């Protein structure tokens, strides 16, 4: 089971994700925006970060770049619902700046759990294909 940080500005969605992952046995930290999320990560470096892309203050893209620069080994899943950042093209592109996998909102519990376990099996995210 893994320690996971969830960053999403939508409270309901964040709580729902927390609930889903806790039920699956994971340990969860929550942050309501990217700044709090990075601070929290600096204090409690977890194994996996799930971050929304379309957020106030700093975008999910900046969060991913910041984390990836300082913590090459952390696993990252990008999630988004729409707007420019929700387009498939954009989400695919998150892998170019550091995300390991992406999920398009809304996704099913099954899709989420499968993606999480797939990401956790990646040994060295920088070098392996996925």
């Amino acid at each position: 089971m893994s320690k996971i940080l969830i960053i999403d500005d939508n409270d309901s969605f964040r709580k729902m994700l927390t609930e889903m992952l806790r039920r699956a046995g994971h340990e969860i930290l929550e942050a309501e925006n990217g700044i709090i999320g990075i601070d929290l990560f600096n204090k409690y470096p977890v194994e996996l970060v799930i971050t929304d892309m379309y957020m106030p203050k700093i975008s999910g893209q900046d969060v991913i770049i910041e984390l990836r620069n300082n913590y090459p080994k952390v696993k990252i899943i990008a999630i988004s619902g729409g707007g420019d950042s929700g387009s498939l093209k954009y989400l695919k592109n998150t892998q170019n700046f550091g995300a390991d996998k992406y999920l398009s909102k809304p996704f099913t519990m099954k899709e989420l759990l499968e993606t999480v376990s797939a990401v956790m099996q990646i040994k060295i995210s920088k070098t392996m294909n996925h």
Partner: protein
Amino acid sequence: MNFDTKKTLLLIDEEQDWLSEQKELLKKFGYKTLTARNGEEAIKIFNNNKNIDLILIDIDLNTGINSTETSRKLLTIRDIPIIVLLSYDDKKTVDKIEKITSYGYILKKSETTILDNSIKMVLKLFYAHKEINRLEKKANNKQSTATDSSECKEINRNLISQKQELDFCLKGANVGTWAWNIQTGEMNTNERWASILGYTLEEISPVSIDTWMEFIHPDDLKKSEILLDAHFNKDSEYFERENRMKHKKGEWVWILDRGQVATWTEDGKPLLMYGTHQDITTQKKAEKKSYEAYQIINRSHIVAFLWQNKNDWPIEFVSENVKTLTGYSAADFIGGKVSFTNMIYKDDIDRVKKEVASNSSKKGKHSIIHEPYRITTKNGHIKWIADKTFIRRNSNNNITHYEGIVTDITKEKNMEAKLLQASRMEIVGTLAGGVSHDFNTLLGVILGYGEMILDNISPESQNGTYLLEIMRAGNRSRELVQHLMDFSIPDKDDRKPEQLSTMIEKSLPLLKSSLSSKIDIKYKSIINSSPIYANSSQIQQVIMNLGMNAAQAMKKNGGNLNIILKEAFINDNLALSMNVKKGYFLKLVISDTGQGMDSNTIKHIFEPFYTSKPRGEGTGLGLSIVYGIIKSHDGFIKVFSRKGEGSTFNIYLPKI
């Protein structure tokens, strides 16, 4: 003849405002003016006023007896000089004048100084005629009855003084005179005849017909000779022509040359001819200027109108190019056969009238800029019009005329509508993109908790079945949002060079299997190669959506679905209005014989959630997706349809 005494005029015109204005102006020139609004009134006044010296009559008297009849009746009361007033001196109108008076006309718009001068000249001529008549009568009587030499001397003296007066008149009018012995070629001219050409009479003496032939422009000489021959053969009553003659300085002077043969030889040959030369160069130059201006107007798309401030706004002038705009000729308007007011589109006429009324009531206001309005042309087409109207007021600040500058702006209006449509689509797209993120997040919450509950309870339980319905609705919402996103930002990935014909051929079997057998599908390509950069599954979706849409329109009675593939060149103009690059395009025509659409429906069909189908039958996104896909492929769509006559969708995609 004494001009010191105050002369009394009778002015006949229908316009009360004009009458009062002129009365005031003439007062300043020392005239006493009586006025009449129509023929009958004029006759009454003339009968009761023995001291009226001269009559001015407007040629257009529309109520009661007309101007010709009025003049005839006035002249039966007593001999009186009459001057006709004209708004325009076109040939037709001028010809009409001869029936009314032999004292000529003056334009209503002339300065009062000119009017005053004309009145004085006409009075002089009138008195001179009278005197000549009197003396002739007297001479005739004397010849037959007496031989009193002193009386003869008096007649002679009077005749000489009359001649001097006439000379004086002609000099005042700046008219050159000539007398020509046609048989000998000898000519007598006055000083003015020479000075018009920049010479003194002495410089060009002795004058003969050769002098005239030397000065006249060769082209005009030929034409004058023809006219003179006609007059000598008595085919015309008099000779009249506008000729160019060479001035001393070298330039051409325009001369109005008029004359009449006075005596004939015993064998019927013309002997003596008298005439005048009038310098009309200034007038000719002004005429040329206004002719040029008029030609420029007629070549432009600006139509100029002048209409009276009366009931139904009768048109006094309109430029010839009104025919291009409306299909009716200028004569149709001026003759009152058609009315511009009646051409204004029924939904716009009240507004236009209101704009005129509200602007006209403001005293200092001199122009009206109308909001664009529509007119229906002779062929039944509707055109958009920009109209700037100038208000013409007299010195009493009453409106006499309106001058309209009218332009066809149909093209601009259509362009504006297209741009509006394009920007509206863009706004919807942006909104859809922004809203979809929040929407998907919230759907994620609903579906997520739903899944978790479903883990806890049996899906067969009552709550389980309720929950499944919630989840189903949630999933449908998710698809809807996905469609909306496809419309706003179709993925530009996975584009490669492909044949459009292949995509059509792949779609056809699928389309056939999903349409009813009442619909006959035909596909024809009239080009050999149809390469485009495209995402083939998106283009196939376009064909499917349009095919299904056509089928929907033919659901009731069946019909034909025709798909044609061809090529088209898109020029600068169309490319600009469609916001694409100019060049060769593939043109995919998908047409049906279904129920068709009205113009209002066509305007909205590509907007998301606009649907003409009954509730539940369509998402209202099918055509929006088509629009989004074609736009993202740098193409465009044109739709033609009429209620009851089927629809045609033309899809243009840039050819590689």
